[in-house]
């Protein structure tokens, strides 16, 4: 006898299913992934050409890595919400899932996207930009991990906000930059420490800031998302 489990829907299943829907949809249409890949390759090429044979000081190179990552994020992370609005499926999703499930499911999607993006970017950047050298890998890896989570968290709530506005494309970096600035300054500093060969303990301050930033942004997003998502 076919049946549905009544009355106690599983929030976790909801979250995972939203994540899987976005992922499967992305694999079938490949909008974000190809755009992001091309963006990263193009940007690193531009940097390579403009540096030429002169190179740049290591601190500047640490900063530029995150500039590439920031703008790549800006070109790809809004898609998860903007696509729903543009296709008219926002209402469909509202009918199926609670706001918190939508936020978390899409946050997970953006997180996976950012991790993939950053891995590729870091590898390409390290391989192609010869002045960029990492001496303390442990700091660098933790920085990339925490930085990715923070980037995904902030970008997702801002994406939800601009998806409801008109000039989505240009508005996204404008709104995201002030919010992400604390994160960017911290990860750039930590990357610089990693390239200078600092001890792992010296980056504790940066890691603490990153972890608190992530906690604050996720908590605030969770509390405010209803006002953004529901009409």
């Amino acid at each position, binding site marked *: 006898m*076919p049946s549905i489990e009544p009355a106690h829907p599983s929030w976790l299943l909801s979250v995972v299913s939203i994540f899987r829907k976005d992922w499967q949809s992305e694999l079938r249409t490949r909008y974000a992934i190809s755009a992001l890949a091309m963006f990263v390759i193009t940007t690193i090429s531009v940097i390579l050409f403009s540096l030429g044979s002169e190179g740049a000081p290591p601190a500047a190179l640490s900063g530029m890595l995150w500039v590439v990552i920031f703008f790549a994020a800006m070109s790809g992370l809004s898609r998860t919400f903007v696509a729903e609005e543009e296709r008219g499926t926002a209402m469909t999703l509202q009918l199926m899932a609670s706001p918190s*499930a939508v936020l978390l499911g899409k946050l997970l999607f953006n997180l996976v996207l950012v991790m993939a993006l950053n891995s590729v970017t870091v590898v390409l950047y390290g391989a192609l930009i010869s002045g960029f050298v990492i001496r303390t890998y442990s700091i660098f890896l933790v920085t990339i991990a925490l930085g990715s989570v923070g980037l995904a968290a902030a970008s997702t709530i801002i994406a939800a906000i601009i998806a409801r506005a008109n000039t989505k494309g240009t508005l996204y970096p404008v709104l995201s930059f002030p919010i992400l600035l604390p994160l960017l300054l911290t990860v750039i500093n930590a990357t610089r420490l990693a390239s200078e060969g600092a001890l792992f303990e010296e980056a504790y301050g940066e890691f603490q800031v990153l972890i608190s930033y992530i906690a604050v942004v996720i908590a605030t997003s969770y509390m405010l998302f209803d006002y953004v998502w529901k*009409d």
Partner: protein
Amino acid sequence: MNIQLEASGIKKVFNRRVIFRNISFSLRERNTLLITGRNGSGKSTLIKIISSVLSPTAGSIRIVSNDMPARPQAYAQLTGLVSPYLQMYDEFSAREMLSLALAIRGMRASGTIIVDLLRRVSLEDRCDDPVRTYSSGMKQRVKYAFALIHRPPVLLLDEPMANLDAEGVAIVQDIMEEQRREGILIVATNDLRDIRTYDLQIDLNAIH
């Protein structure tokens, strides 16, 4: 099962324009509500408010299921919606869309519930093709399957016969009959051929 749906003092203002106000009604199982009004009078807006997708400017909707008041967060699980404004994820097939609908609602399905529903809306032979390849009539039928997959006690139909051929119309009339027998049916339309019997009518032309 018993189900009650009450609306009291529903008012919607959009960009400082009052769409409607003072809409109140009370429905229980085996009741049918008909909402009429010319284009732009707010039929779709009222439907969205009842299905909890849109918040009213004033007033409230209350749903009581099996004598227990439902939490507002649960209203979406208790209502099913078919509307011209509703879009499916068209890169997925009908079967996948229904499976997705259940999973995102946090429900696990067992047995043949999805296939049975596809058969009921006469889509079983194209059910594995992406929805984007369907005709408009087939897309409308997918919407019905989507609205029914979680077996909601309240069914909301905005322009129920849109894009449907004779076979589609017969399927929908069957669905409407069954819903009328077991739960609450709410239909918004301008074409009175869509619905023959109803218990209550709200005419949005008159409310201004």
